[in-house]
């Protein structure tokens, strides 16, 4: 049972405020985080995963304040993420990518094949990771994140580069992950995916939290449409 709370998080880059006093919480299940480009979604992920220190605010995991923790410490507490701009280990093979993550958790390297099978890219096992198609590389990042057996999984635009059938398979995988008791946060532009699989959705716009609600509530929200359509 894992809960993430973000309290009053603000990130400024010089004059620009990328994230402005955002407070939200995430429970087990799939939580959507949507908003137009530049809304601050990826920056918020950076703050939660520990890659960026917030200018103000706190991050709490299971009521423990982890704001000052480094990314590797958070990972050991069960936080894992994927990246919008791919961060696969390009010099290593796909299989080795997953093994690095498994070894970091002292888990058996034998699990790698299973994980690659699970996300559906077993065929690329022996390829060097910077040579696989974008969609496969995103799934590789997912497999690598799963290798740390996370309780909180942050996925940054996982479905871009996937075709329809692959996206459906991905949706099914999301439900499995939730059934295993994990909390998943999904930054996504594919609205079908968000509306079909999310239990709850937070909408960011220009760095601020615009609204939160169930997919049905978000669909009806006038401000959301405005933010997207301008």
């Amino acid at each position: 049972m894992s809960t993430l709370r973000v309290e009053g998080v603000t990130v400024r880059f010089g004059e620009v405020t990328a994230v402005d006093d955002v407070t939200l919480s995430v429970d087990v299940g799939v939580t959507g985080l949507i908003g137009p480009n530049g809304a601050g979604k990826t920056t918020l992920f950076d703050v939660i995963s520990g890659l960026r220190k917030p200018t103000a605010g706190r991050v709490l995991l299971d009521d423990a304040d982890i704001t000052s923790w480094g990314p590797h410490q958070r990972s050991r507490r069960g936080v894992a993420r994927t990246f919008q701009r791919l961060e696969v280990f390009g010099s290593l093979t796909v299989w080795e990518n997953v093994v690095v993550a498994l070894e970091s958790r002292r888990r058996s390297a034998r699990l790698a094949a299973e994980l690659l099978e699970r996300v559906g890219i077993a065929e690329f096992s022996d390829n060097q990771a910077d040579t696989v198609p974008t969609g496969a590389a995103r799934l590789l990042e997912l497999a690598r994140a799963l290798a740390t057996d996370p309780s909180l999984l942050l996925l940054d635009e996982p479905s871009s580069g996937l075709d329809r059938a692959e996206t459906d398979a991905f949706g099914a995988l999301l439900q499995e992950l939730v059934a295993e008791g994990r909390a998943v946060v999904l930054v996504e532009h594919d609205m079908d995916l968000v509306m079909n699989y999310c239990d709850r959705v937070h909408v960011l716009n220009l760095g601020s939290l615009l609204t939160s609600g169930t997919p049905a509530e978000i669909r009806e929200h006038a401000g959301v449409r405005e933010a997207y359509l301008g």
Partner: protein
Amino acid sequence: MTALLAYTVFGLVTGGAYAVVAGGLVLTYSTSKVFNVGHGAIGMVMAFLYWELAENRGLPQWLALLLVVGVCAPLFGLVIERFVMRRLAGAPVGITLVAGVGVLVGLIGAAQVIWPPQARPVRPFLDQYGVHIGQSYVSGHDLVTLACAVLVAGGLYVLLNRTRTGLAMRACVDAPELAALYGTRPHRLSALSWAIGSALAALGGILLTPVVQLDYVTMTLLVITAYTAALVGRLRSLPWTFVGALGLGLVQSYAVAYLPSSPFWIAFRAAIPALLLFVVLLAMPQSPLRIGGVRGQRGVAVPNALTTGVGAALFLGVAVVLALLVDSVVAGQLALGLVFGIVLLSMVLLTGYGGVVSLGQFTFVGVGAVTVARLGGSPWTLVVGALVSAAIGAVIALTALRVSGLYLALATLGFAQLMDKLVLQSPIAFGVRGSLQVPRLFESAAAQLVLAAVVFALVGAAVLAIRRGRLGRRMIAVKDSSAACATLGLNVRWIRVWVFSLSAAIAGLAGGLFAQLRETVAASDFQLFNNLPLLLFAVIAGVTSVSGALLGGVLLMLLPVLQSGFPAFAGAAVVLLGVAAAGLARDPNGLMSWVFRAWSWRRA
């Protein structure tokens, strides 16, 4: 009080000359994103050229200055930009650094060929016009230096902030492709910045000749001073760079005035720029983990355990046969080549796999050599030498690994200078006479060859085993994406420290072998400058494979042999080395990968 004033003025004058050099460095770096390690070397060559024109050929000083700073230096900058640096645009920091080191080494070689060592006095400018401030005298040359610093500061400010060209230059740094869309020409701007940068290096070099004397290495290493000043401005801000340069000049001047003049403190003064470099590095914030833009590197295939074993056995067989066949001089040389090969194995680990460029690897060899020389002849002292090196490597890593990439590589250069000036050249290391006798482990050269071969084979096999294993995967993962590593729970910093000190241990082990093979070792064997050919040979031969290390070690051993065999060729060999490295920098797999490619093509 008057003494303080005099030293302050003197410090400001030196600082002003540093500011001119450092300003050029920041300008080229901030507009072309290539850090020119050869910046000081350009200043050195141009100062020699100035001597040639003004002193040797008898041209008026102003004309010589105009020709060198206004014509020759900018042209030279253009040539370097066009034929070396432009091809490397967007390449990783390590590659541009190696190309820069290639330029540096090539320039030193060229200077030594054209201007063989001799005393070359250079007349100061406007010597007849000095002014008295209180009781201290400020010479005309000092006034010229200060005026130049002010003019350069003003000129650069106007160029960058008040002209369209300057605006375009600043735009190109952030996004050359975008700037090109708006009609600027990134190539032309980058060329312009290299021309101005070289001219400033030349001007600074010429202004400093009365202070530092015309010397190949001292002037080349001005780049460390300039870099320290530039770091104060984070390699971006010109005003802060000028502040840094003036501060450095003042600190050095006060050090001359107020520190005791025992040998240690004299050495200490020379190490001040490197020392301040570390102070500035410590004050810098931890570099953020870089996100985005991951490109993998294609190394040569890694052999499995069986192939490694067979390869090592074959290699040892050949070494034993050679030891039985060749005479003792050749056997001794081959053993030396293998010892250099072991040093290069330490770079395969650190640079080839870990992606960290170290400009101070030979210094760890020195540490190992000193340890063995001090403790005397038992095989265990080799191990102790390796451990001492590893410990020092860990300490350096903890300091320097706060920063990454370019900053880190230059920090290792600073470290090498610090060790050179403060430890290796002091009596602590090699005693008052500056050299130590070391008992050999085995008397015969043949046995030395076999010993070196055994150690090379063991270390080579260990390096490959590391590459195939967990640590190897981790270090490559850290190189490719440290951000992803951190989010997977790996402590990136400890992995880096571990790799750095492991690599230092290998270099230290090689140092011990080197000491007992040579029988006499001296501080001059481990000068800072020896680090640079080492890096170049590593890259030329191939820094990603054990066979590349072997080839590089043999080449490194052959260089002085060739140079003493063909004295006319000595300088040219160094020039060639620099050119080859600048040309081959693009592919760190080096010459060895061509061999592998030819092999796999033949089999296919």
